């Protein structure tokens, strides 16, 4: 089995410690980043129930690549020891590891039970053959080591215990720099930084690719592409959102200032060279030529809740343009305007009770690669769908829903209903 194979292999094994949020997105992101950088990766023990996953890569340099690009990874530890109990770790001989005289610190990460600090100290002192002869330095050690313990039963001992040096931590700087709390221009539809960077990773955005967002809003989904040196542009029916007109949604601000708009954000981050501009249009009017053009389409279409699905005549109630038509149109557009191999990454709202995989829109020229749910409320969720254009479109091709589309088509009605 894979575990035996990994244990017996001469290659190093690493323990990935994920952030324990957006659980359905973590492995898809890891695999997408591997594909982006041609990294061969084997993984074992991944589960949505806990944040740990063993991986093996051909080249240790790939670990830095993963840490730089993935937003769901907290840190990665090189696995020196792996045991099914604490006793196993305490008695581990560490015979393969030369004694190190570097100053060090040992941290403990646990899941399923909080381990008190005193217990951690006792544990470290019980490790009989720890090959560390240097000084303990909590503030600025030469090397940091981790004990990682996974508990399935809080009253019993851990079922998985790992030990090894910390290889690196995920870059929080990016999420901090691009945090929407600090951003110049935001609105009610602005996507939070972690999710927008996640979308860029699932879309395989790489330098020099061309990205489009047809429901641009405040432009939040184009910031990660620009950061990754992708040329990007967008459009939206709401010209005020593009220009930054009207009442500000930021605390303490009355109306938006002159520089608060989509372009202003790009300028504030120094990414304007990748931002190709935007235009106002009704997505369904078909302003753009239906020819293969974009490498990536990333978008968050309206759900009919906050910024209502607008048509130019603002006749929402009587509009026959349902939410379902919007998504079918999006798939038709993507199938026609993506280059072969290009990706469409978009959110679709779902009423959880009504959702089945058959309620998702499909298209003969697009293949559904990932389908990751983010729960929003007891009743509602949204799903991030990643689709790849796997063949060219013919005139007869059209998007369709196999089953019942009410899980997204009735989203607005069910969302506001009293039941």
């Amino acid at each position, binding site marked *: 089995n894979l575990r035996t194979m990994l244990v017996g292999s001469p290659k190093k094994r690493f323990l990935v410690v994920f952030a324990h949020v957006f659980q359905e997105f973590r492995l898809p992101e890891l695999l997408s980043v591997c594909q982006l950088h041609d990294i061969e990766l084997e993984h074992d023990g991944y589960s949505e129930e806990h944040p740990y996953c063993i991986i093996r890569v051909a080249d240790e340099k790939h670990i830095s690549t993963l840490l730089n690009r993935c937003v769901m990874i907290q840190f990665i530890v090189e696995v020196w020891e792996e045991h099914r109990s604490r006793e196993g770790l305490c008695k581990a001989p560490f015979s393969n590891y030369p004694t190190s005289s570097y100053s060090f610190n040992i941290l403990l990460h646990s899941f399923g039970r909080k381990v008190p600090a005193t217990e951690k100290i006792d544990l470290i002192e019980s490790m009989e053959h720890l090959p560390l002869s240097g000084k303990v330095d909590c503030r600025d050690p030469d090397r940091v080591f981790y004990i990682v313990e996974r508990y399935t039963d809080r009253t019993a001992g851990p079922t998985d215990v790992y030990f090894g040096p910390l290889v690196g931590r995920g870059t929080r700087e990016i999420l901090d720099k691009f945090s929407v709390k600090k951003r110049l221009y935001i609105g009610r539809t602005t996507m939070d930084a972690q999710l927008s960077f996640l979308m860029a990773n699932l879309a395989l955005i790489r330098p020099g690719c061309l990205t489009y967002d047809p429901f641009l809003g405040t432009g939040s989904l184009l910031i990660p592409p620009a950061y990754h040196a992708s040329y990007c542009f967008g459009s939206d029916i709401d010209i005020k959102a593009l220009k930054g007109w009207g009442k500000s949604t930021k605390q303490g601000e009355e109306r938006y200032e002159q520089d608060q708009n989509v372009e202003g954000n790009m300028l504030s981050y120094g990414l304007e060279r990748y931002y190709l501009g935007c235009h106002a249009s009704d997505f369904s009017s078909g302003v753009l030529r239906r*020819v293969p053009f974009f490498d990536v389409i990333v978008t968050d279409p309206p759900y009919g809740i906050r910024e209502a699905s607008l048509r130019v005549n603002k006749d929402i109630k009587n509009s026959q343009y349902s939410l379902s038509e919007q998504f079918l149109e999006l798939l038709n557009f993507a199938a026609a305007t993506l*280059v072969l191999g290009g990706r469409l990454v978009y959110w679709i709202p779902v009423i959880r009770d009504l959702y089945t995989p058959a309620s998702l829109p499909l298209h003969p020229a697009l293949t559904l690669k990932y389908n990751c749910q983010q729960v929003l409320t007891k009743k509602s969720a949204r799903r991030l769908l990643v689709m790849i254009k796997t063949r060219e479109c013919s005139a007869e091709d059209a998007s369709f829903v196999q089953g019942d589309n009410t899980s997204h088509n009735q989203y607005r009605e069910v969302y506001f209903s009293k039941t």
Partner: protein
Amino acid sequence: KIKILMMEAVVSTQSTGFNPDFISRMLSRLDWTVFVQSANLLGVGEGLPDMLPEDQDFDDEDVLKKIHHALLEVEVIEGELECPETGRKFPISKGIPDLRLNEDEK
């Protein structure tokens, strides 16, 4: 659908890093005739070939730079786009074209 001819009022030029790979890859995706037409209207069409070279590995750097300049560095800030078929005008303000149609135009 709608073909666009451009009439410029205010044009801005921003220097942007030249990325020859990106420009080469975009060549086959452009409607070359319309692109050259637009570039000429903006006064940056000089040196652009009338027809796109058949050669997939087109790498004449001078021409690529001119294409890069017209494609990425020149922007209409204020002006109008006019549909050659209907004469319908679409305003451009602060660099953002308004291409929304009225209900009866759809």
